[in-house]
């Protein structure tokens, strides 16, 4: 589904990604772990199409298409979803209205019928139970006045509503207490399916107790320095990033 080859990206002339290689297939859940400043969020933003990051080398194929040539909204309609590390507040824009517009733009792209307000409400109410969200949040402005936990759960709700093919979760676990973390994990686990790929970007091993990955990759200084199964996360927990890096500094393409 996703093939990243020798991806280099920089911001303001500063190179952050220095040759990332990664292949993700449908049905897989990958976790990308790494210390602060290693380029995890940059990778997520580049995949979603944020134009503050310049791709200087390499390519990204999504379902065989050149992802980097697509506009962010085009990528989204094609099924790429990013759960934001810092969900953005948009005053005055009703959450339900926004979500329905987003869903309908994606449904239209998929050749499905657009949902009217009543059908949409039925659709979304089911999904809200999944993340224990109060229906009243639908009538508030997007993320405005939401608590940190509500914002993160809101991202999972949006993912559940929009049903992406590829979901990238950018540190969705950061700043969550254990109860909220469990709710988020339940949401993500429910959304795992054979035709969907998920990339969970995180700083901490903790979340992987609840969302068990098929593959773990360690990203340090803009490169994936090690890849392995879920046990790699535990090794990281024990030895820290420094210990893992020394053991394997290989940069050859890693496929799964």
């Amino acid at each position: 589904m996703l093939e990243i080859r020798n991806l280099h990206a920089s911001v303001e002339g500063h190179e952050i990604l220095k040759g990332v290689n990664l292949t993700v297939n449908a049905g897989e859940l990958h976790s990308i772990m790494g210390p602060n400043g290693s380029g995890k969020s940059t990778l997520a933003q580049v995949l979603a199409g944020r134009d503050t990051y310049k791709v200087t080398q390499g390519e990204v194929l999504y379902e065989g298409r050149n992802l980097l040539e697509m506009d962010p909204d085009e990528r989204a309609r094609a099924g790429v979803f990013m759960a934001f590390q810092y969900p953005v507040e948009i005053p005055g824009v009703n959450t339900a209205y926004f979500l329905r517009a987003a869903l309908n733009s994606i449904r239209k792209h998929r050749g499905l019928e657009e949902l009217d307000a009543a059908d949409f409400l039925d659709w979304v109410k089911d999904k809200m139970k999944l993340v224990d969200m109060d229906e009243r949040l639908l009538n508030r402005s997007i993320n405005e006045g939401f608590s940190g936990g509500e914002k993160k759960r809101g991202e999972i709700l949006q993912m559940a509503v929009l049903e992406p093919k590829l979901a990238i979760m950018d540190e969705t676990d950061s700043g969550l207490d254990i109860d909220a973390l469990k709710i988020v994990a339940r949401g993500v686990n429910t959304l795992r399916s054979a035709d969907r790929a998920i990339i969970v970007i995180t700083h901490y091993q903790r979340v992987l107790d609840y969302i068990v990955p098929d593959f773990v990759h360690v990203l340090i200084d803009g490169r994936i320095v090690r890849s392995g199964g879920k046990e790699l996360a535990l090794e990281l927990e024990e030895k820290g990033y420094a210990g893992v890096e020394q053991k394997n500094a290989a940069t050859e393409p890693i496929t799964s």
Partner: protein
Amino acid sequence: MTTATDATLETWASQEYKYGFVTDIETDSLPPGLNEDVIALISAKKNEPEWMLQWRLKSYRHWLKMTEPTWQNVHYPPIDYQSIIYYSAPKQDKDRPQSLDEVDPKLLETYEKLGIPLQEQEALAGVAVDAVFDSVSVATTFKAKLAELGIIFGSFSDAVQEHPDLVQKYLGTVVPYSDNFFATLNSAVFTDGSFAYIPKGVRCPMELSTYFRINALSTGQFERTLIIADEGSYVSYLEGCTAPMRDENQLHAAVVELIALDDATIKYSTIQNWYPGDKDGKGGIFNFVTKRGKCQGRNSHISWTQVETGAAITWKYPGCILIGDNSVGEFYSIALTNNHQQADTGTKMIHIGKNTTSNVVSKGISAGFGQNTYRGMIKINKGADHARNFTQCDSLLIGDKCGAHTFPYIEVKNSTARMEHEATTSKIGEDQMFYLNQRGISTEDAVSMIVNGFCKEVFRELPMEFAVEAQRLLEVSLEGSVG
């Protein structure tokens, strides 16, 4: 934004002002210039009574002693008042058409093109329209139907002929002839406009509306509107405006006076879409307007709602004088400036009666090189016990070359008054756009979503039929503003 989006946005930006066409019609125009003879001629063409002419001349003589104001936060080259044509009317076989069937088909076609059909059978159900073309009213729909309820609605000129007592009683009682430079000029040379009178206890069953169109070259439009809501009556009134695209600036200096007696309500909505000039700021209408309402009676209520998207310069402060106890004045405004447009607009609320309330919600949107100023005055007089005011003044910036400015003036002379003022300035952030894009929403839809969300409180105040139109207009006016 990305290059691909830039390209789409540029296509938008090059879209032309939709109402910029000129109607080729024979006109009866005076030569440019202003003096007492011109005023006498205008008055004579309208077959006005002597008191009307005297009022005009008194205004003109006063105007000669006034100087053009310079305190407003807008910039424009000096206006040559001697090069303006003060009267231009479509030539007609007879003096005035007696019914819609007699209106020149070219005029009907013009309004058709503007989306305002004047044939009653095709007209918007529930909306009566008075169409003002350059200096004269060319048609009024549903006049007869309204007359059955005792409602007088039609051109100001007709009102001077048919209801001189009402006109004489109320004209200049809200905006005196000596009020300000442009209002005084209007008092001297005004040519037409709308007049409405709603009798006691009558709730006007349809929206009354006036559609103003400037067509002729070098012509100034000086219309005057007077609306009187008698005791216990209700009326909702809407005005819309467009003009052809021209390289020169044209002056539009109107006066609107509203009078609400005991328990009466007037809702006055404006959708202003004068030609704004091209993207380099060439041409466009100078929209210098004085609008004021007088809540004369107890429990009276006047509400101004304006959506100002057009004009090169907008300079207006629709206000309320709250005389009657428990009266309410409201002002809801959306002012949008794109490219090189300038707006200095806001309101004046003068609290005189007891328990008077005023609400002010102003939404300024600046894009391109647009400059947007909110200027508001809230004045609580000595006797206005327990007066209340709430003001909310929000600015939204799109891009980094535009400006938003706020000048609130508050004057309180009564210690029981309660005043609240809230102000915010925000920018459509790149992160907001990216967030919406990332959910599959296109850049253009994302901008209109954010702007509509920002303006929501004001749209709610517009009559249903026009809220949709206003939203669409805002979208069109914003095209090309994000890149």
